[in-house]
């Protein structure tokens, strides 16, 4: 799950620290540890026929975030060791602190972890300083990569999400492959079927309908026996994580952009008249039909409220609803259905995604063994097992999404498979790739809170755009 509940101060301090590292290195502090090769990729050293046992006896160290996908991976590690003779040591940290740990590790230039989990947004932060290995040469080298890995089996939009030229504003899908898609989350609407039936409601097909339904649930559900139920759970904390699930999805479906790129220069676009109107409507929806203490809401609260029958709908990651929907997980389990959510005015179902990816430390001294691990972890064999026997529920591979055993497993959740199949091709990163992403989206969340608090949307967003224009210039 992408809690993304970064403490902003921590994050900024770590980023500042990371930025200071080259300076310290220049002063002779000896950071960087760099004994890696110059221009070429270490992948070029792998020759001959592909062999899973090539690095037998090695140990790879992984930094993992606590997540059901991680649980499925750890449960299956023995099969990797049996297949390759490579041992995997791993550390698992809770998500609130995971990225702090990873940022320090990477910025120190010491390869204490060979492989790690990261989101596509992190490529925009970790890629430019050269902390991430470009996996493209490994993927292209048939001596390093077995034919069964089958690159064409990945949903192309997911593979492209981790591919970037490291230039602010440049589109994804070009340049180096800085991580591999491993597990992902699409942002859709999950709703309580019981309350919808009782109130005679149907899932919203437009944003206007969504706002109306959210308000109607809040007004009517308590009278229908759902004490304290409100309409829609969406994130609201002052964090970048607030922007990317439901908000960004609906924003994109309305044809809106975070930035425009003109002559290679980024220009904030959150203050266009259309964006202002949308943001005002979103804040209004939260006021009319959202949770009472919305400004502190992370995915934890959103997901829990759906499970506790406190929220009639959830507009967030499908996994956030899934873990409440499975049998016995919550008071609402068995009564949660999935829907792609409202379409944009032109029928758009553009959806923003969070993608758990696996990356390799550019300073790793065990790149060949690490690549075998990445290949296995993103391969069909493990991912199928993880999807069918574990909770790796949004497959990054087409073959697994169509696998009969996987479909059987997911079929009992009303609308899950249909929703997944409806949005999968239209789900991509809807943000403009740029290194200031976290700062920009955190400020955006703060602006959203101000508008929710009653400030004028236009002036708040104009101020935000002015501030961001200076930062991304």
């Amino acid at each position, binding site marked *: 799950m992408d809690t993304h509940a970064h403490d902003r101060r921590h994050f900024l301090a770590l980023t500042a*620290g990371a930025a200071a590292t080259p300076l310290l290195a220049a002063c002779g502090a000896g950071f960087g540890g760099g004994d890696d090769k110059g221009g070429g990729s270490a992948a070029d050293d792998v020759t001959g026929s592909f062999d899973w046992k090539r690095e037998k006896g090695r140990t790879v160290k992984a930094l993992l975030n606590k997540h059901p996908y991680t649980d499925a991976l750890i449960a299956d590690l023995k099969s990797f060791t049996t297949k390759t003779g490579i041992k995997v040591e791993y550390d698992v940290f809770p*998500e609130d602190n995971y990225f702090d740990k990873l940022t320090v590790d990477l910025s120190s230039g010491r390869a204490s972890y060979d492989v790690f989990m990261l989101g596509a947004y992190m490529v925009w932060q970790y890629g430019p300083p050269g902390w991430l290995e470009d996996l493209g040469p490994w993927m292209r080298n048939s001596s390093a990569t077995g034919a069964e890995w089958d690159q064409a089996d990945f949903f192309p939009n997911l593979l492209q999400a981790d591919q970037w030229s490291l230039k602010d504003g440049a589109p994804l899908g070009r340049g180096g492959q800085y991580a591999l898609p491993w597990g992902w989350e699409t942002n859709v609407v999950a709703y309580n079927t019981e309350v919808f039936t009782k109130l005679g409601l149907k899932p919203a097909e437009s944003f206007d309908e969504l706002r109306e339904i959210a308000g109607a649930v809040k007004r009517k559900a308590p009278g229908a026996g759902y004490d304290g139920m409100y309409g829609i759970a969406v994130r609201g904390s002052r964090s970048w994580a607030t922007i990317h699930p439901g908000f960004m999805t609906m924003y994109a479906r309305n044809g809106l952009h975070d930035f425009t790129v003109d002559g290679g220069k980024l220009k904030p676009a959150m203050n266009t008249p259309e964006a202002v109107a949308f943001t005002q409507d979103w804040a209004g929806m939260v006021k009319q039909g959202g949770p009472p203490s919305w400004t502190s809401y992370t995915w934890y609260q959103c997901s829990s409220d759906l499970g506790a029958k406190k929220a009639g709908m959830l507009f967030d990651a499908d996994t956030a609803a899934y873990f409440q929907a499975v049998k016995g997980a919550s008071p609402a389990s068995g009564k949660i259905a999935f829907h792609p959510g409202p379409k944009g005015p032109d029928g758009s179902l553009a959806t923003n995604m969070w993608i758990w990816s696996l990356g390799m430390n550019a300073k790793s001294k065990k790149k060949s063994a690490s690549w075998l691990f990445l290949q296995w972890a993103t391969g069909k064999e493990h991912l199928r097992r993880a999807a069918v026997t574990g909770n790796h529920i949004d497959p990054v591979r087409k073959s697994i999404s169509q696998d009969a055993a996987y479909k059987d497993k997911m079929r009992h959740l009303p609308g899950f498979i249909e929703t997944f199949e409806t949005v999968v091709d239209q789900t991509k990163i809807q943000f403009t790739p740029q290194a200031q992403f976290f700062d920009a989206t955190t400020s955006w969340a703060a602006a959203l809170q101000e508008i929710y608090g009653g400030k004028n949307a236009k002036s708040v967003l104009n101020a935000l755009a002015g501030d961001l224009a200076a930062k991304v210039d």
Partner: protein
Amino acid sequence: MTTRKRLSGLLADAALILYFVFALFPIAWMVILSLKPANELFSTYFSFTPTLGSYRTVLGDSEGIPFVRFFVNSLVVSVGAVALSLLVGLPAAYASARWRFKGSENLMFTLLSFRFAPELTVIIPLFVLYQRLGLFDTYVGMIWVLQLVTLPLIVWIMRSYFADLTPELEQAALLDGYTRKQAFFKVALPLVKPGVAAVSLLAFIFAWNNFVFPLILTSNEAQTVTVGALSFLGGDRPKYNLTAAAALVSVVPPLLLALTIQRYLVRGLSFGAVKS
């Protein structure tokens, strides 16, 4: 006693009780959460079937989180850090209270700045040093780095205790044939015992609660409860019952220590805190 006085006394008592309830409410809420079974955690209707299941999970390693090991790690590094700080800090505090030399105040303020500087500003160089020196994820490394937290506290608070002692006492001991060392250990130190107890407890709590250093400078071997307890939050659903149980278990050592040295604590804190 007039009716008015009695009434105001009653009101004062009521206000105190209200404040007591207010102050203890978060703890009481945590206790309730820790005793709730998972299926009642998010119920909107009132239901409470107390169970010790969360404590069994937390202490029994059934979530794959070795909480007991983290707990022992916390004990080892916190006790170790306080012991080392006392060993170094008490003579330092005594010396700084008794002798002034050029730059002595600057030295003391430099020491104090270690306490107030944000840990994150030094964490990357520390991380690199720890990796190179083999201190990463070790008890010794954690005890050493926690000196940044405990040593300034001990030196600065104990300095005011020693400054408060009249130097004539040690001078009399010197006249009686004691060496400086003996005067320190046999005269000055016993007199500031309540202060040592109080400051040790404070230092222990600060070391125990530290989060950033164990987060960045440990892996699995020397990880402490502050980082480890968060693992119970869960990656799929928030498991507040387990987190509450882990947090409550983590509170036990500082609480027991405070109760044990309560006698010294009240005297010690009221003594030293107002004198510097």
